[in-house]
């Protein structure tokens, strides 16, 4: 038996439960209410309202990814430098919050950030002026970064802790300062982890809608919200499907570009 046949169950599964449902949605995207072929669904993304939501989502997802990198990189680096004996424990600490239900956690953030919320109460105790962040893009961003940060820390941390200590020692022995060690050794070797992180943060950030509904006060319209509205409220499934398919294609193109056409090279594991 050849090794590649081990993938048979998986291939069957992918065809049965990923490819065929995707085709169902694809068919829906390219048909109208009358069942005839149309480009309307997939081209709808170019309409002003949808385009605006798409651009806003792009901006939010991009900002969220950037902030995640900025927060996660030092965290991963510091975690590594403490040389915790038990890597598993560290990782667990980062994943553990996900075991509380997502909606409950986002509702908790709403309580923290609201006008008479916990954060402003604490600030008040210290005599600081209250923050008016609730129901704005700032609270939306806080919620997004909160939700996706672990997905950025984990792969970077994995990439960095996979770096051979001997390599760093060798660089030091050859006279590299800690700055040079970082620039020439650690950083380049952590790039694959960062790329995994970018995919794990950017892609779901593009399609999320629950956070915008709860923390954005329903005033901010992401492309995810529009897709949700088409499916759940307007009951215009053709349009919803069309928007999702074109969003998927755009994200795929974007990813191919980021990964320089080499999706498979995104190296590091999440865990």
């Amino acid at each position, binding site marked *: 038996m050849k090794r590649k046949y081990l993938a048979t169950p998986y291939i069957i599964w992918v065809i049965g439960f990923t490819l065929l449902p995707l085709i169902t949605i694809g068919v829906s995207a390219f048909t109208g209410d009358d069942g005839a072929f149309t480009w309307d669904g997939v081209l709808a993304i170019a309409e002003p*309202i949808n385009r*605006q939501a798409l651009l806003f989502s792009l901006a939010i997802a991009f900002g969220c990814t950037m902030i995640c990198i900025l927060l996660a990189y030092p965290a991963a680096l510091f975690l590594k430098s403490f040389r915790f004996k038990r890597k598993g424990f560290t990782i667990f600490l980062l994943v553990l919050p996900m075991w509380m239900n997502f909606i409950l956690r986002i509702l908790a953030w709403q309580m923290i950030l609201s006008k*008479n919320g916990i954060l402003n109460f604490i600030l008040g105790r210290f005599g600081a002026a209250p923050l008016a962040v*609730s129901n704005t893009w700032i609270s939306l961003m806080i919620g997004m970064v909160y939700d996706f940060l672990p997905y950025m820390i984990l792969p970077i941390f994995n990439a960095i802790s996979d770096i051979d200590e001997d390599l760093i020692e060798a660089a030091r022995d050859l006279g590299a300062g800690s700055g040079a060690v970082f620039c020439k050794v650690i950083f380049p070797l952590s790039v694959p982890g960062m790329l995994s992180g970018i995919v794990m943060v950017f892609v779901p950030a593009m399609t999320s809608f629950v956070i915008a509904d709860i923390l954005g*006060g329903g*005033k901010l319209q992401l492309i995810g*919200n529009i897709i949700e509205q088409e499916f759940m409220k307007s009951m215009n499934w053709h349009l919803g499907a069309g928007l999702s398919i074109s969003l998927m294609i755009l994200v795929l193109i974007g990813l191919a570009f980021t990964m320089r056409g080499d999706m498979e090279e995104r190296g590091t594991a999440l865990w």
Partner: protein
Amino acid sequence: MRKRKLCVLGAALAGMLMLGGCGKEEPTEYLTVFNYGEYMDPDVIDRFTEETGIGIKYEEALTPEELYAKYISGAIDYDLVCSADYMIQRLIEEGEAQKVDFASMEYADNIGDRFWEFSQAFDPDNEYALPYFYGTIGILYDTTKVDAPIDSWGVLFDGSYKNDIIMQNSQRDTFMITLKYLGHSLNTSDEGELREAQELLIRQKPDVQAYLVDEARDEVVAGNAAMAVVYSGEAYLGHEYNEDLAYVVPKEGSNVWIDSWIVTKHCKNPEAAAKFLDFLCREDVAEQNFEYIYYSTPNQAVVENMDEELRNDPAITPTEEDLAKCEVCTQTDPEITKLYNELWKELKAD
């Protein structure tokens, strides 16, 4: 070592599984019921099964639209559906409902005559829909945060409470009250009137703190906002938590909504379905349900047994005066629904 770790883990997980693993007798007949979330005391469902031996498969949805989307996909054959008046109307019009013989039910008489009359707005011969709960839409406000008692929708639109207003994150409710404020019917099919309402809503948007669903009540209770557009039942609960809150149905009029039950065409056991509806109308059951939900009940037997305070609370029992200025929503024209969707999307995108 790893094995030992896995054993500990496995044992712990198995322990957690045991928690809920209590067996019980399985009924032979089942009804599949689709309702809003938290819109029936779970105990009522258990009682029904105990009394009749008919099991209930219970499903929940958050909004009428979502319920419709899941219903119409045909993924599950629901026997009974409870939803908002306009959605019930749509289901009836699309031939999804089957006739129910309310006259032969023992307890259907408990539903007050006027609610059968309300129902006629979307079910002209009272053949399909059974009223479940009803109420009005109004303003829940914090009396300590406003200068004078509120009596008009105008406070939402005149810019005097900037960033202190919570609107409903539901296109129908939001448009309905705006249409009422402008002096139009909330069932209008005039595009001009709808666009006028949208324009007003767009102008109001900067003053709105958030568009929320039912968390709206909590935001006013917590003092995060001065006022919110809510359903009357929510107002009662809000008042329970914060005594400073008051509820008003503005003088321009509003919407009176009736959430109703229908038996769908998929139901293969109409007798069991009728039994369930009859059960819901029975006084003790309706009372238990009322005390779980605290929305206005059309069940007169329950109303008569209520204590004075509850019966006189306008959030629990809308006054004649309030009801007189309210309209039932019967607008289900697909073209208008489409326009609503479009206008709502534009408002949100602005």
